[in-house]
């Protein structure tokens, strides 16, 4: 289609059946696709939450404690559980797709897909362990 196809009353109109806004509800695989796309909202909320946490940590000890108490609010807890599920879905779908996006060759041979996926999961385990260690270790 030409980019110059400006709309005028005389322009021929193509016959296109309008796709429903809810086209993705009809089939499980379509729904999963939209759900995967919506994980970006979980990622957005993760950043917002981190910004609120850092802001509280600037405010001093009482502000930090207040933040944690405020986070116990059922609505925020529900939102955090939902977004945690979304970012987990994002992580799993992202790492499982990584072998298709990355073609790594070592000594002229293609590294098998499961190696790439496994190294991604290893990185996830490593980051998780470091964060847990830094925040939970006593002393």
């Amino acid at each position, binding site marked *: 289609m030409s*980019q110059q196809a400006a709309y005028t009353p005389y322009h021929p109109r193509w016959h296109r059946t309008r796709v429903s806004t809810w086209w993705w509800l009809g089939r499980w695989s379509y729904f999963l696709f939209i759900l995967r796309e919506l994980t*970006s909202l979980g*990622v957005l909320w*993760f950043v917002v*939450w981190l910004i609120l946490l850092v802001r509280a940590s600037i405010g001093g000890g009482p502000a930090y404690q207040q933040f944690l108490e405020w986070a116990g609010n059922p609505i925020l807890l529900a939102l955090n559980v939902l*977004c945690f599920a979304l*970012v987990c879905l994002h992580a799993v779908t992202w790492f499982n797709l990584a072998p298709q996006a990355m073609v790594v060759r070592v000594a002229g041979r293609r590294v098998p897909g499961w190696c790439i996926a496994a190294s991604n999961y290893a990185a996830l385990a490593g980051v998780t362990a470091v964060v847990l260690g830094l*925040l939970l270790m006593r002393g």
Partner: protein
Amino acid sequence: MENRRPIEPLLWLLFSAGGVMSALFAPVLLFLFGIAFPLRWLAPPDYDRLLLVFGHPLARLAIVVVCSLSLFHWAHRFRYTLYDGLQIKHLNEAINSVCYGGAVVGTIAMAYLVWRIP
């Protein structure tokens, strides 16, 4: 349309880098600070400990980089979700400015806050 092309690869790169960063960091951080600490399943770090971790130069840098790339990941993906899901292509420019503009504003806000961590 033509003059918007050169920036497209950069946006895809940011989307991709942000996808990796958020996949690595978001699950553990959201679980700890959003669920486990508020519910006291795990004892939250005390304030001094939190500052010790967040105040470290490497951690400050990591927080800004992870947040910024995650925001650009969101911006790019959400833009296409709106295209495909709701079929509102005619709101193109408004959506672009909200998404990428939001990512830029969020990055600046986070950099400022992180700089002020005692």
